[in-house]
């Protein structure tokens, strides 16, 4: 085997070590690369900014721990923004893995900003059957959410006394690691005309650009970069911005790996052709 063949068959565990180092080193010694914002994220920010204080916002935490490192930073940033603008937040969950995450985030951020449960925010918990739940909110919250996560009837919650259905909600933001935004678009936006924005994992972000172009989504926060952009817009650096240096270094490494792999492959192919000739 010549050098290029040996290079192509390098034990993948060496690659794993390089990847790990390329994440650890920028986390420990940050580069401070400046993040610029993009229109899809700016549109979400502007949609929240345009709401009059006191207008309820529905934030749907539709993800589980497997996508938490990407989606929790943007959920936290959006909650901070809503509380800073005096927008009451109604939190729902359509993914069974989400309640614990939503509870921890809402509890932590509400304590940080001094938000009062029942007045500034309410956590309605998880319901199964995404399309049925989304449609039922359009009719009346009571249909699927007779009580909140803590089993308090929603009639006894001050915030929910002012909110019956989508007519009383200024914006719905779904944070999802799965296809829940499709259901929100199909059933909340198309049927009830509800204004929608989405925060999704980077894997899914490219797939939702058609909804941006049609206006079915007013904006889109995609992946950790999207979270970093939102943190920059609200001027509150957190895990999103802190992870960008590591993200950049690893991306450069992956591009280098693709280039090196193709160059080595080219040399191996040429050597094989020469041997055959």
């Amino acid at each position, binding site marked *: 085997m010549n050098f290029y063949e040996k290079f192509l068959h390098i034990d993948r565990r060496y690659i794993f070590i390089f990847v790990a180092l390329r994440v650890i080193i920028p986390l420990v010694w940050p580069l401070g690369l400046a993040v610029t914002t993009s229109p899809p994220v700016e549109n979400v920010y502007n949609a929240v900014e345009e709401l009059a204080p006191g207008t309820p916002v529905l934030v749907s935490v539709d993800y589980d721990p497997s996508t938490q490192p*990407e989606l929790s930073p943007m959920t936290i940033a959006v909650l901070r923004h809503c509380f800073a603008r005096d927008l009451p937040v109604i939190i729902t969950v359509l993914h069974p893995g989400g309640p614990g995450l939503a509870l921890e985030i809402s509890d932590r951020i509400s304590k940080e900003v001094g938000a009062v449960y029942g007045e500034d925010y309410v956590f309605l918990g998880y319901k199964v059957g995404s399309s*049925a739940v989304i449609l039922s909110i359009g009719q009346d919250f009571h249909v699927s959410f007779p009580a909140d996560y803590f089993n308090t009837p929603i009639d006894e919650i001050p915030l929910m006394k002012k909110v019956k259905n989508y007519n009383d909600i200024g914006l719905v933001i779904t944070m999802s690691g799965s296809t829940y935004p499709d259901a929100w678009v199909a059933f909340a936006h198309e049927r009830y005309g509800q204004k929608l924005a989405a925060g999704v994992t980077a894997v899914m972000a490219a797939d939702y650009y058609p909804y941006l172009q049609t206006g079915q989504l007013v904006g889109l926060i995609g992946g950790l970069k999207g979270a970093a952009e939102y943190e920059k817009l609200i001027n509150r650096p957190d895990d999103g911005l802190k992870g960008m240096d590591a993200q950049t270094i690893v991306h450069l490494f*992956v591009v280098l790996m693709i280039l090196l792999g193709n160059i080595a492959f080219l040399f191996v192919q040429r050597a094989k052709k020469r041997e055959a000739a």
Partner: protein
Amino acid sequence: MHISTDIWIWIAAILTLCIYSFLYKDNPFYKFAEHLLVGVSAGYFFVIYFWNLVVPNLLTPLKNGFGTLFSGGGFTGDLAALVPGILGLIILTRLIPKIAWMSRWAIGFYFGAFQGLTITGYMQAYILAQIYGTFMKGNNPVFSVALIGSFFSDPGWGKILLAVSGPLMILGVICTLTYFFFSKEHKGFVGGVAKIGIVFLMIGFGASFGYTVMARVSLLIGRLQFLLRDWLGVIS
């Protein structure tokens, strides 16, 4: 460096490292952590379903309904929850092979309902809105003669992109749809159009792959932030 003294942070860190040990090779630590995750997750889901769904949506209405009934208040709408409750119990017969056929009634109920919702919802969101968006952006046409004209009157790189992007997008959608139309053989004119569709698809998949790399790396960054910050205290 301020290593955490919280026992739960240590448990979380050890379990994290057990999972990462799979990168070296499959081993008992990884298998232990994997099975523990499966078990804890299953129990978590059951508890959440009970407290978030069964109690508020089924047990509480039935309790109120029967309470009103037995106190002489007559039948109330709350008792209607008996019907889905019984249907739900029928689904569980799937666990008993001899009477598993009964679960089909309940499955037919919710399956049929969701298919009915799919027809109207998807028609609007996936088809009508997308076709409209292909040719119109809001109230303005995507294929804008004015933009093309402005390029010729004042040429520039920015103007050419603006002029070309809209028609390019229309072409892309039509060619992609042609590629997926397998009722006609991809030969001649149709074959040529389908080939252009492949070009757009490859660019789309390339963009998705780029984003996929970003997503996976972000997950790794999140976990290493936990290990370095919450456990080892190396970063603030």
